[in-house]
C-alpha cells in the first residue's frame, strides 16, 4: 500500500528532481570543507564518504561511547564537529547539519535498516517502545493507535501511514524544505497536542531507535519526499 500520492512518490523517485538531493549535493561539498580549530574536513578522517559512510546511517540510532548515550546521525555528526574538528556544534535544522545528514543518510540508500538494540542500547530501545505505546497529549493518543491499529485508513483526507522512519531525512512539501526525522516526530507530538520534546532529547532518540528496530529490514530511500 502506498501512503503518499503518486506525484509525491514520483518526486522521490526522480533522482535528478528530488529536492532532497540538493541537500545531499551540499553535504558532499561540506564533507570536503575544512572546519573548526582543527581545520579538518570530514574527508581528512573518513576519506571518500561514499565508501566510508556506506551502510552507516542504516545502523543508527546507535550507542555512542564518546557521548555516553544512544545518538542519532545528527548527534554523531555534531560529535565529530565538536570533538574532532573542534568547531561549534551545528544547530538543529540548520542548512549545514541537514546537508551533512542527508549526505550520510544517502550513502545507505537501498540498504535495509539494521539498528542494534542490545547492550548499551537496550535501555533506550525499551524507553522508545514505552513512548510508542503510551497515550499522550490533549488528544490522548498513542503512536500505536494510529500507526499500528489504523494505518491505511483515512484521516483528514490523508491515509494514515505506518510511521516508518526509513526515508528520512526527507523533503517535506508542507515545510518546503528537507527536514530531520526529529522535526517530523516533534510534529507528531504536536498532532496529538502533546508537549514537544526538545531536539536531541533522550526521548526523541529513544523513539527513533524503537522505530528503526520496528522498521528493521525495510530499505532506505533517503532522502525521501513527503507531502
Amino acid at each position: 500500500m502506498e501512503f503518499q500520492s503518486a506525484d509525491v512518490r514520483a518526486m522521490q523517485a526522480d533522482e535528478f528532481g528530488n529536492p532532497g538531493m540538493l541537500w545531499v549535493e551540499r553535504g558532499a561539498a561540506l564533507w570536503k570543507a575544512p572546519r573548526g580549530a582543527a581545520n579538518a574536513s570530514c574527508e581528512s578522517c573518513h576519506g571518500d564518504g561514499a565508501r566510508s559512510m556506506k551502510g552507516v546511517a542504516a545502523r543508527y540510532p546507535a550507542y555512542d561511547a564518546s557521548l555516553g548515550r544512544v545518538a542519532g546521525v545528527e548527534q554523531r555528526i555534531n560529535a565529530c564537529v565538536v570533538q574532532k574538528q573542534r568547531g561549534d556544534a551545528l544547530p538543529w535544522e540548520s542548512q549545514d547539519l541537514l546537508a551533512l545528514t542527508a549526505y550520510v543518510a544517502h550513502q545507505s540508500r537501498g540498504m535495509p535498516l539494521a539498528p542494534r538494540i542490545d547492550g548499551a542500547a537496550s535501555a533506550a530501545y525499551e524507553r522508545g517502545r514505552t513512548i510508542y505505546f503510551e497515550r499522550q497529549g490533549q488528544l490522548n493518543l498513542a503512536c500505536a493507535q494510529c500507526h499500528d491499529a489504523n494505518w491505511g485508513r483515512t484521516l483528514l483526507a490523508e491515509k494514515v501511514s505506518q510511521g516508518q522512519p526509513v526515508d528520512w531525512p526527507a523533503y517535506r512539501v508542507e515545510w518546503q524544505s528537507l527536514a530531520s526525522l526529529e522535526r517530523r516526530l516533534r510534529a507528531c507530538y504536536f498532532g496529538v497536542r502533546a508537549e514537544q520534546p526538545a531536539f536531541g532529547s533522550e526521548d526523541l532518540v529513544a523513539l527513533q531507535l524503537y522505530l528503526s528496530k520496528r522498521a528493521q529490514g525495510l530499505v532506505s530511500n533517503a532522502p525521501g519526499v513527503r507531502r
Partner: protein
Amino acid sequence: MKRRRFLAAGIALAGLPAAAQRFQPPQDITPLLMKITGGVAAEKRGVEVVLPQIAENGNSVPLRVKVDSPMTADDHVKAIHVFAERNPRPLVASFHLGPRSGRAEISTRIRLAGTQTVTVLAELSGGRFVMGPAYVLVTAAACLDESLL
C-alpha cells in the same frame, strides 16, 4: 480548522498565523491577460495543461504545458505565461522560447493557494495568442495554510 486555532491558542503556540484559514476567492484574471495580449483575443485551443486532479499540498504541484506549434522561424511559441486565479499573485511565471526551442513544452512545479483553475496563455510569433485551462483540487493551500512545526 477553527478547533486547531483554539487549541493552538490554548498551548500558547504562536506558530499558526491568524490568517491561516483566510478564504481567497478566484480573481478575474482578464486584466492580467490583456496586459500581455494588448487586447488581442486569445483563441481557446492548442494549449494542453497537465495538472494532477488532486494536489495533496499546494506548496508544490507538478505542471506540464504543451502548446501545439511547428516551432519554425515563421510559426513558433514566443512565450508561455501561467496564471493561478486564486493565488495572492496570480501571474506565476513566464517562460520565453524561440524558433530553435524544438518543442513548446515546459514542466515545472508551482504553488496553488487552494482549489482553482490554472490558465496558461501562449504568445505566438505573428502576434497571435492561444490559451487553455486546467482545474485542480488542492487539499492544503500554499501561501495561506501554513505549518512551521
